């Protein structure tokens, strides 16, 4: 079996175990939170009989192990139950809210890589000189403030004082676009409505920047730190002794080997954006899954909590697998190893 396949199968196996662990943990935690979910859902005016009926329907009176058994059986059938908050299937809710968040996170993740890595390379190439200092101060700023602070600042600056961008939402109400993928930038293009596409993009930019800023700073600082270390390696001096251009040395000799350790953390940052997206979604009234997740936690909507957490955990695992494969691709030591390393 090729090493890449081996890494993939091993990772998939681990992922299943992690998913089972996460589901058990969240299942237990969600049921420990005080308050009766049936009572919260039905409101103070419901009769005890009504509450009891819902409790029976949700198997809430049975032992927790049995409840978990029902849950697993449902999940395996692709059924996440009904949300007590929206009164819809949880799968329907997720299908509606997840694309909004994914769109935001993917654009922010792209910014993180497309802006963060070049900034890090720039700083490392000119380490100890002014471009390095500028990058380090700027990235320190972005890393030290959380994304919701940036969301408010960006909104004030570019939507309020300078009305360049819309304040909230994903799309101007005047556009009626059929939701096929849920990604508005894709759907508008599928509908052939270019003006709506520009509008969707316009709505996307500020929240994506707010979400990406700390990631950009993190990626830049990480890349710089790893590259500065690599610049002390003998093969850099050898490359200089062979007269390669500094830009080529930066790219092929300092950046590529440094990317390997940076990539793991950048991947984790990317997945963590899914959680961080909540506050940005709240500020920009972005109808995404993170906002949904918090709303259902506050209402102790058990089925919806489980569904949301499972989707987020699954995304983490998928991102991790992608990162591991990328690293295997970049690092010949892993690609050519005869034994799989964890």
């Amino acid at each position, binding site marked *: 079996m090729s090493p890449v396949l081996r890494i993939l199968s091993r990772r998939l196996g681990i992922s299943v175990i992690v998913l089972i662990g996460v589901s058990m943990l969240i299942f237990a935690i969600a049921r420990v939170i005080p308050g009766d979910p049936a009572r919260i859902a039905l409101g103070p005016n419901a009769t005890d009989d009504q509450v009891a009926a819902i409790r029976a329907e949700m198997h809430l009176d049975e032992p927790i192990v049995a409840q978990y058994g029902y849950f697993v059986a449902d999940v395996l059938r692709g059924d996440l139950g009904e949300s007590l908050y929206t009164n819809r299937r949880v799968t329907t809710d997720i299908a509606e809210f997840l694309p909004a968040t994914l769109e935001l996170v993917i654009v922010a993740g792209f910014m993180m890589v497309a802006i963060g890595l070049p900034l890090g390379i720039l700083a490392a190439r000119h380490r*100890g000189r002014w471009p390095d200092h500028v990058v380090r101060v700027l990235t320190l700023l972005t890393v030290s403030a959380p994304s919701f602070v940036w969301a408010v600042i960006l909104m004030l600056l570019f939507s309020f004082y300078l009305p360049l961008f819309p304040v909230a939402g994903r799309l101007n109400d005047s556009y009626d676009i059929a939701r096929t993928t849920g990604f508005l930038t894709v759907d508008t293009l599928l509908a052939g409505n270019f003006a709506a596409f520009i509008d969707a993009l316009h709505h996307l930019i500020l929240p994506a920047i707010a979400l990406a800023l700390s990631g950009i700073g993190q990626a830049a600082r990480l890349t710089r730190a790893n590259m500065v270390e690599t610049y002390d*390696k*003998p*093969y850099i*001096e*050898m*490359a*200089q*002794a*062979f*007269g*390669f*251009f500094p830009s080529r040395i930066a790219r*092929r*000799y300092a950046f*590529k*080997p440094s990317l390997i350790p940076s990539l793991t953390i950048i991947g984790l940052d990317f997945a963590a954006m899914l959680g961080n997206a909540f506050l940005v979604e709240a500020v920009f009234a972005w109808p995404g899954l993170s906002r949904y997740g918090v709303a259902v936690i506050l209402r102790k909507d058990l089925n919806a909590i489980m569904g949301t957490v499972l989707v987020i955990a699954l995304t983490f695992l998928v991102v991790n697998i992608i990162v591991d494969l990328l690293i295997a691709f*970049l*690092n*010949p*030591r892993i690609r*050519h190893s005869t034994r799989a390393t964890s």
Partner: protein
Amino acid sequence: MSNLLDIRDLKLAFKGLSGLSEVLHGIDLSIAAGERVALVGESGSGKSVTARIILGLLQETPNARVSGEVEFDGRDITAMRPRDRARLRGTEMSMIFQDPTSSLNPTFTIACQFAEVMRRRDPRMKQAECDARATEMLTEVSIPDPERVLNAYPFQLSGGMNQRVMIAMALVNNPKLLLADEPGTALDVSVQAQTLRLMHDLVEMHHTAVLFISHNLGVVREFADRVYVIYRGRIVEEGPTDAIFHAPGHAYTRALMDAVPRITGAGLPEVPEVSDDFLAPMVRHDGGAA
């Protein structure tokens, strides 16, 4: 006589927090075309920085102050623009480093690194041409299965193998001058001896001049035509290898010679770190090429 390399009154100082600290105090050194010259001294004596000045690398370090003349092939390197200096590196002169395995880029195959080096001379060279030429060079350094080595990454090869690869890479563009900074010191002694013999034959065949930097006089004796002994940034003795070994004139040279380990094993000799004798004036043996 016109030399390939002429260094006159070379001085180097580093700017630090407590002002300038001088590392080289006016070095004169010359190498004729195709000549093998050794620069011998203890660590910290200034031999490695000399090589890096010849390559033009130290001139680009912000806190290094270099003065004096370094004339290579009729042109003064110290007066050149950095870009012109970079043009000489990898083409007219190249360098071999101490630890071969960590001096090769770990993320590219040997074939890929060979191609990079060859494209320094001719940027339009195709991968197949590069591979053919690399195979030729690897055969010259007695690598029995060049194809396997070309497709390998440095970590898949032994240290001795990587050393040969590095020698082949350094010579592939037919440089006029090869700088060898303690080559193979990181390898075990028998492998080091093998590769040095190989390198000796190759540079003789290609008529490449070599500046061989070492702390080990025993190794130098096998390799060099002429020897410079450097101590604390000054050349203390200079002459043909035989002359120096038969009649070492300077106290420091004698101390270095005593420091060569012997198989009879008399233990390590006492070499004082500083001695007034070591600061005695330079000894020059006649009959040298310069």
